[in-house]
């Protein structure tokens, strides 16, 4: 073992488990600065200051990288020896890895690009520029909770971290994605390995393009995306062609597991709008009178529910929901004779008189129900904004009503639950319905989200008892607002 190798091993042992802490307020402060600016809407929140900076950096890096790649691809097709360590092979580091310094990437789930770690047997400094060396040299790359080693085999320099998520292979020069003939060999092959060895004691690697680096600087992470795009395009048929917006990278995908494996309890309330369906056999005159006598006025719902979001984004939720639909019943009766009695202090009726007129009756009907919604959905989002698309069944536990409707003689009849027995009263159990919703959450702090949820509810059964030919039911749309409490 050479002195350098011993030194490398020593350094490796010393910094084996070193994970320097990042102040927890770094990203929160950055996010707070961004939140000072009030978003005008959901779409504006995407284009906040941080994302604009990222986008600008991506544009710059992508343009630079594309220019550089195009320049290199049109200039020299010969492969460069592995041993060469020229400045031209160096690219702007996305992640600076230095075994001496053991710099680490901040611990967060922000956009992270894998460190482009070249091997440097001299200084063991990985600056993002792949400088592969022949032989088996190893360089320790310190990342967040990872222990990265870089070993150089004959022609491939492997950069392996103990993080289970990724491993890089640096091959003879700058970062590249393929070793196809005629391509620039100065590329980094990103591979993953589970550490198994083949019969030749070479590590079995699998190409995985969905690899995100840990550690490193922000700019190196930006470059990673740019290089990935450039490499992808270069690997495709034809040269890299700029699009109308320059060399923009793909839009960053929403982080699936942003709310993974969490439990929440949510409290909500909000206005609804009811769409009434009223049908009768033969479109009778009674049906027309019923329609004319009642009109939807307002509705609202409120409730509490428990939501469990699994690590794969799938969510299940259940709770208790109270909903109320208000309806106005009007009844006008003309040519009415009203008798008024005069009663003296002793309680004796000592007189009466008759007045003719018109009766105007207004009753505010209320249709109330207690339901248990059982919803399945998918939740996704970044640090501040989550979205949950869900649908499922709504099981009615109990329904009760209050008010009046017209009977077949066009007279008011009481439909209040529990007040007598009338065929015009409604069911006390409406059965099962369907509900679909899109929930949007905005994080206020670690515990609290505010929620807005437009939804649609469809009831399958009518509300009337079966002994009536007339059928009435309500379907509702609404918006629920509330808060979500993280139970972790």
């Amino acid at each position: 073992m050479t002195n350098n190798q011993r030194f490398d091993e020593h350094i490796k042992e010393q910094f084996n488990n070193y994970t320097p802490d990042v102040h927890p307020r770094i990203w929160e402060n950055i996010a707070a600065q961004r939140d000072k600016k009030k978003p005008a809407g959901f779409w504006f929140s995407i284009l906040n200051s941080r994302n604009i900076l990222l986008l600008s950096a991506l544009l710059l890096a992508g343009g630079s990288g594309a220019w550089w790649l195009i320049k290199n691809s049109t200039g020299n097709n010969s492969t460069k020896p592995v041993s060469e360590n020229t400045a031209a092979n160096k690219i702007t580091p996305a992640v600076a890895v230095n075994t001496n310094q053991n710099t680490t990437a901040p611990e967060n789930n922000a956009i992270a690009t894998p460190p482009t770690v070249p091997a440097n047997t001299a200084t063991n400094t990985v600056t993002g520029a792949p400088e592969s060396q022949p032989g088996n040299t190893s360089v320790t790359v310190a990342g967040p909770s990872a222990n990265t080693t870089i070993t150089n085999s004959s022609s491939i320099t492997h950069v392996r971290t103990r993080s289970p998520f990724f491993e890089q292979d640096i091959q003879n020069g700058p970062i590249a994605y393929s070793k196809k003939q005629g391509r620039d060999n100065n590329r980094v092959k990103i591979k993953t390995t589970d550490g198994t060895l083949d019969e030749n004691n070479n590590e079995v690697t699998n190409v995985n393009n969905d690899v995100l680096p840990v550690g490193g600087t922000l700019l190196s992470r930006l470059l990673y995306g740019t290089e990935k795009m450039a490499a992808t395009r270069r690997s495709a048929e034809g040269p890299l062609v700029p699009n109308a917006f320059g060399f923009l990278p793909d839009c960053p995908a929403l982080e699936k597991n942003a709310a993974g494996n969490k439990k929440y309890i949510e409290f909500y309330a909000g206005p609804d709008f009811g769409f009434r369906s009223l049908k009768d056999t033969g479109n009778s005159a009674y049906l027309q009178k019923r329609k004319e006598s009642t009109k939807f006025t307002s509705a609202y719902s409120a409730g509490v529910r428990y939501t469990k979001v699994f690590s794969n984004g799938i969510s299940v939720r259940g709770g208790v929901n109270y909903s109320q639909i208000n309806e106005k019943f009007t009844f006008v009766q003309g040519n009415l004779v009203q008798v008024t009695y005069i009663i003296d202090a002793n309680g004796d009726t000592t007189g009466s008189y008759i007045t003719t007129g018109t009766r105007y009756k207004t009753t505010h009907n209320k249709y109330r129900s207690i339901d248990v919604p059982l919803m399945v959905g998918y939740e996704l989002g970044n640090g501040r904004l989550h979205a949950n698309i869900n649908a499922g069944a709504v099981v009615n536990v109990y329904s009760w009503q209050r008010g009046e409707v017209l009977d077949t003689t066009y007279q008011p009849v009481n439909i209040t639950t529990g007040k007598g027995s009338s065929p015009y009263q409604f069911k006390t159990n409406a059965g099962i319905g369907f509900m679909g919703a899109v929930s949007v959450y905005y994080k206020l702090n670690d515990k609290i989200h505010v929620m807005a949820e437009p939804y649609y509810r469809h009831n399958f059964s009518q509300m009337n008892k079966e002994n009536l030919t007339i059928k009435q039911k309500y379907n509702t749309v609404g918006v629920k607002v509330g808060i979500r409490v993280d139970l972790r």
Partner: protein
Amino acid sequence: MNRKIITLFLLAGSFFFASCQKDSDVFVPDPSQINGPDTNWYNTITPTMPVSLLKTNLNSAIPVYTDSFEVNANPAYIITTFGLQCGFPPHCCVTAAGQAITGFVKVELVLVKKKGDMVQLNRPTTSNGRLLISGGEVFIRLKQNGQDVQLAPNAKIQVRFPVDIPIATQMKLFLGDESNPDYFNWLPNTDLVNNTLTITTQNYEIQTNHLRWLNADYFYDTTGITRTTLTATLDPQFTNANTTAYAVFKDFRSVVALTGDIGARKFISGLLPVGKDITIVVISKQGNDYFMDHKLVTTISPSNTPGNQTVLVKPVITTLTDIKAFLGTL
């Protein structure tokens, strides 16, 4: 952020309060009508006023005996179960135009001997304001084909009904005057040739050429007797448009109607002998409801009252059946 929360709560509160609306059931009277009891007194009582309907309803409660006879060359006799007997001479009937008629003629007969029936029929026993003591009132009507018929010239009918014990020999024949629908009057018979009253040991026998109301009465002798008036005071909703009032003597068959004084807005009687027990009966009809009160008073000398005797009467709601039942006890 605080403003957002406050706005959110206000919006939520508005939805909750919007659902807390009160039901209403409002009766809106038609325009141009009195929205309360009619407390007006009227100079003229029309057939559509409640008091007219009241009297009609009370009249209909008295049973009318009906029969028929054939107008021909033979006399006809009708004998009722309640003691009233009528005899009709041959060819005694003509039309209203004076044409002789033949064939069957319908007879309607009523005998009134109860004071309550006199109240129901609104046939008080007064003659030009003077108190009469009645031996009984008779009503006779002849019809053919729904039209009233008259007695032929020189035709006289005989009417006989039982006397009271003791027999009042001073009874005279009085004929009913229906010219004023608001005030029924008995007129002493002045045609002693065609209209006579004979008192037998069992019956009053009247021979007359009049149909309709006949009465055997005599004047209450008020010579040297102190008299007073009775005034019934009522609540404002009892007016001459919906109320009738009577003074019914307890000891003899006399009924006096209290007339409505528009100026005083009260019901006032004529001069009545003092020291007599009288039942003041007030009956009213308002809407479809009946009201009645009765007070038993003893007339008092006017020297002890300011000119008349006032009786406070407060009719309360009752039924027509109850009114008839009470009047039957008078």
